[in-house]
């Protein structure tokens, strides 16, 4: 490999990129913009759930029960509904996601010291949100039950309500949240967004860059030149890796400065590890580009191969352990999942190479295999 040729190739490619002003600026704007948009918009917290109350009882107890929900920050009260049917319609149209139905005799049944029934209707279109909502509803209902129970026992035994309430909770739960003490979703989200964005943008740039030469026919210059395959590929990819490296820094700054995510690990480990990941994703772009002949196909194949797995099978929204077998295989075949371990480890856990050497090794393997595939697939004597 003659480095002079490699640099000449890299220089040519760099000029081509820089002269295409729109493309050049988009290469930097797109990752940063996505980071900002998703950081603010992709909130997995379930709060302010719009809900309505159907109070068929109109008693003090039913109002108090409803108030437990109205006053909660998890629910956003959208008014009383006349009937269960009306609430059902609101639920169908998406105006509310939860309806609380308190039947008649609610207050009287409780007053008699008997169990009262209440129904909650939850919109199950989005299952994970429905699960979380169920958690809130159960918690609020349990708190109310505890209070009404202690009031009753206190009245019978003569002890004060506080004492009874304590006696009814002989076991308490003290929860310690690890790695993300405030359970704020931006802290867990931002590092993973770096992973997703670096999965999207480098392969796209690379695939388009290589296929562009193929489709325009300018690649015949390379076929006819004395430049070797390796020299061409290394020189060609160098500028794209450089752009992605700058993007790594930009994304890291956005995460730590804009979103104030604590960075507990060492930057000197984070940067090279991320660079390995970028080489992997660039390699995906390379493999796609030797497979396809047109830029349209390059765009679509890259999109399907990178974007969807990066979101679904990388641990961004769904942890790898809860994936089914088919999806889990796909997850293990993609570099994103391994890098998630590294980036989350660097940001939130503050671990270094000693605990994430395994994923790093896998990533290195990926990079090597992908580049070998690209090298083998790229021929200076194409069959057609």
């Amino acid at each position, binding site marked *: 490999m003659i480095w002079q040729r490699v640099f000449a190739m890299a220089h040519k490619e760099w000029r081509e990129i820089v002269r295409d002003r*729109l*493309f050049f600026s988009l290469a930097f704007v797109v990752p940063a913009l996505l980071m900002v*948009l*998703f950081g603010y*918009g*992709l909130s*997995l917290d379930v709060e302010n759930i*719009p809900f309505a109350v159907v109070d068929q009882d109109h008693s003090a107890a039913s109002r108090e029960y409803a108030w437990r929900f109205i006053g909660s920050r998890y629910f956003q009260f959208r008014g009383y509904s006349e009937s269960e049917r009306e609430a059902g319609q609101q*639920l169908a149209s998406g105006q509310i*996601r939860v309806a609380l139905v308190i039947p008649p005799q609610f207050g009287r049944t409780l007053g008699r010291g*008997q*169990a*009262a029934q209440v129904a909650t209707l*939850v*919109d199950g*279109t*989005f*299952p994970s949100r*429905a*699960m*979380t909502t*169920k*958690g809130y509803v*159960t918690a609020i209902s349990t708190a*109310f039950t505890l209070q009404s*129970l202690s009031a009753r026992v206190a009245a019978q035994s003569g002890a004060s309500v506080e004492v009874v309430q304590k006696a*009814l*909770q*002989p*076991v*308490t739960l*003290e*929860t*310690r949240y*690890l790695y*993300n003490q405030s*359970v704020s979703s931006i802290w867990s989200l931002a590092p993973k967004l770096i992973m997703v964005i670096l999965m999207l943008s480098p392969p*796209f740039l690379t695939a*388009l860059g290589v296929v*562009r030469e193929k*489709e325009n026919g300018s690649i015949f210059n390379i076929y006819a030149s004395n430049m070797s395959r390796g020299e061409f590929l290394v020189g060609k990819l160098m500028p794209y890796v450089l752009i992605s490296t700058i993007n790594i820094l930009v994304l890291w700054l956005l995460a730590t400065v804009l979103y104030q995510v604590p960075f507990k690990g060492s930057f000197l480990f984070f940067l090279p590890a991320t660079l390995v990941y970028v080489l992997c994703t660039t390699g995906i772009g390379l493999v796609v580009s030797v497979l396809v*002949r047109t*830029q349209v*196909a390059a*765009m*679509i194949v890259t*999109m*399907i191969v990178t*974007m*969807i797995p990066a*979101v*679904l099978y990388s641990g961004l*929204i769904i*942890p790898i352990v*809860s*994936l*089914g077998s*088919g*999806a889990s295989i*796909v997850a293990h075949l993609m570099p994103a999942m391994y890098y998630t371990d590294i980036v989350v480890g660097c940001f939130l856990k503050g671990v270094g190479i000693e605990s994430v050497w395994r994923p790093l090794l896998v990533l290195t393997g990926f990079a090597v295999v992908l580049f070998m595939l690209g090298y083998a697939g790229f021929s200076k004597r194409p069959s057609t």
Partner: protein
Amino acid sequence: MSTRTREIVLAVRRFQAMLVKELKQLGRDRVLLAFILYAFTIDIFLAASGVSLSLNNAATLVQDHDHSAASRELTGRFRAPYFRIDGQVAHDKDGLAALDQGKAMVVISVPEGLQKNLATGRQTPVAMQVDTTNSVLGFLATSDAQTIIARFGLESALAKLGVAANAGNMSGLPVVNNEIRVWYNPNQDDSWFMGISEMLNIATVFSVLLPAAAMVREKERGTVEQLVVSPLSPLGILLPKVVSMTGVILCGIALSLFLVLIPVFGIPVKGSLGLFFGLSALYVFTTAGLGLFAATIARNLAQAGMLSILILAPMLFLSGAWTPPEAMPEWLRGMMYASPLHYYLDVAFGVLLKGQGASELGISIAGMSSIGLGVFAAGLLLFRRQFD
């Protein structure tokens, strides 16, 4: 009158010729075709079968310092489907190490003296460590644990007070039994949500990319010059492109619906399929306007590609499927209401799962078509200007 008829016949013939040309061009790109097929079948199958957002069998370790009947009873309540006890740990260090390596998600430690305290009436703090790297699951695990502990505490306290309080036998006490009914997806089957939303995402990707690419390609290769000198109007060039791509995407949607979603995952089609396909056609057709928009700005395919990521990624992520509108900041909510996918999502879930008709979906349909037609008209106008 006859010249008028001839003109119409001519226009139809030109339309036909262009349509055939577009379909042939698409059909000859084998790799592309294979990927369209893959995306609408296997990819949707994987997304629907493989992804679960609910708390399932969270790996749990127990640190039992009490070794009593009570502590065994308490930890025994952490069971499937939410928790899965993976074993015991003796020291804090082992528990932390398991959490660090991601082998466990929850570590529960029961302090010494639980059974004694239960008898004497002193409060016992049970500690729980949760890996909240994934905040949603961390929350779900905590809330489920809270429910389990509260229930256990209440039952043992009532038992001590001499009130029989087995699970089903609290009817003699002033408690509130809140029966939660989940509509439209009673088993909270993630595959329904994931499958449908994946189908919509794929349709969106193709309806932006395919027309944009088809247009820019002509520009880049210079074949657009041939079209300009031909007797075709700008609309006559544009319309066949969009119509052919819409047809291909609708076929894809039909494939995924009838081959994957309905037979494999048993998605109930509660509403009318005709309405669903009609509205899908409207959606795909109008979303193509966004692609044309990108195509008119871009001078080559690389630019068009980056621009379409810029359009697509926010559309896909901020459609309201992952984050409900009420959880978004004000300025982003505005952007979401401007995204046609947001309305299409309501339409698709409304028709397929809720069984809604056109009248109930009026607002969504109006929103989708007005935004779509607006963008399409703007795209056409810009495209026209390029010809002059």
